């Protein structure tokens, strides 16, 4: 399954590539080839003074006029001009920055292109990307699509072409990892579930089309499909609305503070953000929901979440808090497991065993009770060192560092700020590695892409209802389109898979 998901995604990416290559074979772009205009944040994410948003494709000029509020003509080619950047619909000013116009063929991609050099804040970038997305004929670029278009336009030399194969490999690998990251969470389960249900709907409609004249397939099959499609439509619509509020994929490195109750997790959060963001009390179970704070650690965006202490509780609210804590840990790039070091056994070996066991109980999930925590995904924070004698602390640190299989360990006291500097250095290093990894995708773009596919999916489901009674072939076409859209997120579904469901669910025997 995993493999086919990947291959499906790869195909999507490569198809585009080939279309373009073939269509520009004679040096002339034929109008029917990729008429889509793409845009993306071209500068990396993380803190930066200036961000560059690039647009390429036939609608570039329209985007430039709309965004820069130019009513007549176009700016001189390849000249930086200072302009207000506006939302083309609401005319609201989003930022003030440089615009550059690169008419075809003298651009990186060989197509009409535009660059917007805007201020580097996340709010500005997001609003500009959203505004571009609202221009007709524009869509967010797939990973590496600019380079591909350049390749197709013959803008890259032979050696660069050779390198492109490897680049695409890296990109698709990144897409796969990114997809896996999202797919392993709740969102992934949701999309998979939709895809599965939709596949079933399509299989049942196809069975009705291909076999009902000769076989016992009752009309009831279609009524069931009608209901399922309605449910799906409602769920996807609700999801699209929810996503705006807070369920969105978060930008930045996600760091989660987890551990047993009263280990000092909230204190760590407050220490890190230097303000009382979370309520701290000596009562176990004070934090019941996830408390989030956006932080800047050494120039890198971090979303820090404090979670409820993990313990078995009869309190319904607290149990929900623990569930959310576990869910958040699964999505985290980095988990800080906080341990009250006064709870540790004195003997170093027994302390190590205790920590192993503790990590397992904190990080375990219901689905994977025997989860093996990966050392590069977590950091052990032994808090309350002020409660230990000086030499005991040093021995503990020395002994524990020798134990193989434990994640890196920091000893801190949130109370006295002792060891905090070392901890911050360690954290900074980890965040830097995570951000600097070129394979970490840009979540804003991923999210925009998901939205676009989900919207196409609901539109296609509407087509099912429109033709359900008049023309089942066109209704099925609607389901196919919907599945294709969803497949862009979850992986492609082939005709054979549909046939498999048909033969599993129906006795077909003409």
């Amino acid at each position, binding site marked *: 399954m995993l493999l086919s998901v990947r*291959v499906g995604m*790869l*195909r999507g*990416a*490569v*198809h585009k*590539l*080939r*279309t373009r*290559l*073939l*269509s520009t*074979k004679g040096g002339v772009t034929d109008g*029917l080839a990729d008429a889509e205009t793409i845009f993306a944040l071209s500068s990396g994410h993380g803190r930066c003074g200036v961000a560059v948003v690039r647009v390429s494709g036939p609608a570039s000029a329209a985007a430039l006029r709309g965004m820069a509020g130019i009513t007549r003509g176009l700016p001189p080619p390849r000249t930086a001009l200072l302009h207000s950047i506006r939302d083309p619909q609401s005319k609201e000013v989003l930022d003030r920055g440089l615009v550059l116009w690169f008419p075809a063929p003298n651009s990186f991609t060989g197509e009409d292109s535009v660059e917007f050099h805007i201020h580097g804040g996340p709010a500005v970038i997001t609003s500009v990307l959203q505004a571009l997305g609202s221009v007709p004929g524009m869509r967010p670029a797939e990973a590496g699509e600019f380079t591909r278009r350049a390749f197709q336009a013959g803008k890259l030399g032979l050696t660069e*072409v*050779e390198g*492109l*194969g*490897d680049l*695409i*490999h890296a990109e*698709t690998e990144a897409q796969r990892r990114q997809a896996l990251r999202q797919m392993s969470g709740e969102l992934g389960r949701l999309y998979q579930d939709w895809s599965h249900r939709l596949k079933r709907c399509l299989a049942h409609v*196809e069975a*009705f*089309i*291909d*076999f*009902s*004249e*000769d*076989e*016992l397939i009752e009309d009831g099959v279609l009524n069931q499909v009608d209901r399922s499609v309605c449910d799906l439509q409602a769920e996807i619509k609700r999801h699209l609305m929810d996503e705006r509020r807070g369920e969105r994929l978060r930008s930045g490195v996600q760091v989660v503070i987890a551990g047993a109750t009263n280990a000092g997790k909230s204190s760590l959060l407050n220490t890190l953000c230097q303000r009382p963001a979370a309520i701290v009390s000596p009562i176990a179970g004070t934090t019941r929901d996830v408390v989030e704070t956006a932080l800047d650690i050494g120039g890198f965006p971090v979303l820090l979440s404090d979670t409820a202490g993990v313990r078995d509780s009869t309190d319904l609210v607290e149990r929900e808090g623990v569930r959310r804590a576990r869910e958040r840990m699964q999505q985290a790039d980095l988990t800080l497991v906080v341990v009250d070091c006064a709870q540790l056994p004195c003997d170093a070996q027994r302390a190590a065993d205790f920590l192993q066991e503790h990590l397992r109980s904190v990080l375990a999930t219901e689905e994977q009770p025997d989860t093996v925590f990966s050392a590069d995904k977590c950091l052990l924070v032994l808090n309350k060192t002020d409660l230990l004698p000086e030499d005991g602390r040093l021995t503990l640190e020395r002994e524990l560092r020798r134990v193989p299989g434990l994640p890196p360990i920091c000893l801190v006291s949130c109370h006295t700020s002792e060891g905090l500097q070392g901890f911050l250095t360690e954290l900074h290093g980890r965040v830097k590695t995570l951000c600097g990894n070129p394979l970490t995708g840009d979540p804003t773009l991923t999210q925009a892409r998901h939205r676009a596919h989900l919207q196409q999916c609901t539109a296609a489901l509407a087509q099912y209802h429109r*033709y359900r009674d*008049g*023309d*089942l*072939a*066109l*209704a099925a*076409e609607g389901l*196919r389109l919907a599945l294709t859209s969803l497949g862009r997120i979850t992986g492609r579904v082939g*005709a*054979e898979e*549909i*046939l498999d469901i*048909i*033969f599993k669910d129906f*006795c*077909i*025997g*003409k």
Partner: protein
Amino acid sequence: MLTKRLHRLQGFLLLVSRRASNVAKQQYDVIVVGGGHAGTEAAAAAARVGAETLLVTQKIHTIGALSCNPSLGGVGKGQLVKELDALDGLCGRAGDWAGIHFSILNRRKGPAVWGPRAQLDRQRYREFIQSELLGTHRLTVLEGSVEELLVTEPNPEKPGCHRVTGIRLGGSRSISASSVVLTTGTFLSGSLFVGQTTSPGGRIGDAPSSAGLSHTLREALGLRTGRLRTGTPPRIVKDSVDFSQAELHPPDERPSPFSFLNTHTRCKPEEQLPCHLTLTTPGVERVVRESLHLNCHIQQDTKGPRYCPSIESRVLRFPGRKHQVWLEPEGVTSDLLYPQGLSMTMPPDAQLRLIREIPALHRAEIHTPGYGVQYDFVCPTQLDPSLQVKNTQGLFLAGQINGTTGYEEAAAQGLWAGVSAARSALAMPPVTLSRTESYIGVLIDDLISRGVTEPYRMFTSRAEFRTALRPDNADLRLTLKGFEELGCVSSQRYYETVRVRDSLRDALEALQSIVLSAANWRKKMPDILMSENKFTSLSGQDVLQYNTVSFEMLASAFPDTLSPYMEFSQRLKIEAVYRPHCDLQRKEIERIQKEENMALPQDIDYFSLPVSLSQEVREILDRVRPSTLGAATRLQGITPAAIVHLLNYVRHTGQKETRTHSKYDKNREELHTENASLVKL
């Protein structure tokens, strides 16, 4: 058309004897082995393309026999019949001649998935096919058994390890040919099963084919084969059936012909025969279980079709259910019925016990018991898109030998193999048929790029561009190409299709020229129930998309503009509804077509190719040897990076297009000019 046929049929027996004894030649362009659905279409198509063709079959009088069900077409299969007809194949016209019960399946589900179908009179079908073949110019029919394929060194200028040079018949007589098409159906190492008895053969009553042929394919040519099974039901004596216990299923009141050339079928509407439907009972399941230990065929784990299973596998896989049994007439004068859905291989006495558990068959008599067949097929991934064996120049395979099931699937491959074999023999440039333009293309592409694990049958859901590949427009999709590019279509059919195409275009233009505001539409045609909230202007074509609107309604509202096109009213309605959807698909279709035009040389050495490909990818490419870049992308395990490298390689070695310019293209251009002047007239 049909009356002419009657005269020809009268001299039919005479022709058989004359043709059969008339074989003097030692050399042909194309030899077709086998006289089933694949073989007959192949032979006729090769002759139409211009090849001197020989059809060799064990018995001339079984040419065109319907070995299993007496019916043609259906959902998915009907599309194939329409496409075969559009390419001037035989089976559509044969169906119109032999049909005794016509119906369009899926009538309420949309024109893209309509399934034209007919019950056939076996006798009439065979007569038609035989008469058609015997009257085909450049085609000779010979009765005989092929003992061996003659194979020699390959032509070094073309890819492949062997080259076929002809066949050896029984009695050591050899006949040479540039191309040989094998359509041996279930006869390749075929064995028949009834109960616990097994005997060699491919069909009851026919001699088994020679072991020499299997030997050549497997040993001399090194082809990989697999084994499949199928079966056929017992034939029931009609008078012994209690029809009062079955549900009557009448045919369509007005039979729709398969062929684009026919306006009516031979069978008059009122002369059509009905079908009957009955259901299995728990008793059927009991008999199956009781006789299981006596049933060799069902105990073997050879792959059988999931969609044409025996009654044994149906009740074993879905126990406790009622299964449908269709009682189909075998012909106008036949005393037999064909019980569709009761294919079985248990001993004959158990077969009788089983059918009598079915209400309408409680006192039925069996005329011939059902039986199973197991046979070898050649893994079709070893074929190129022209259905030629990749490693053997001039050897083409079509039909069940490629792992398919069904008359229509066999006929489709036969026609294509015949066209390809003839073009290869006559040194004409190769041609392609894409999955974006036809079900035949889907069938061939699925076979050669995915292979088969069970008998392959056509479904509409296999065609990703189903909305464009409709039964109604098969002529527009294929007849023009069939004449201009493939050379297998007569000029008579071609000019008729040109007329149809031009009229449809004019009619659509006329529809678009009618533009009214929504208010005026409501005034002019209150019946169409246009929403009061609509204020925009709409063309006649827009309005024709409404469920409530027919072309006839529009024509009576605008008689001057539209009445000349009344003969196309149904096609215009379908066009209006589907055109927007097809336009959406066009981009995707063009992408696939371009990929398919990027040929990968067949003799490429993937292991020494100087580009960076992983060993794994090289092995896959070497094993499958995709013929185009499009086929390569559909392979499991091929990475996008590999595709980029391949693309780059193909681009730099200049091997881009499958087709090369030649005198045939020039001819085609002349035709286009002719065509253009025709349009002006």
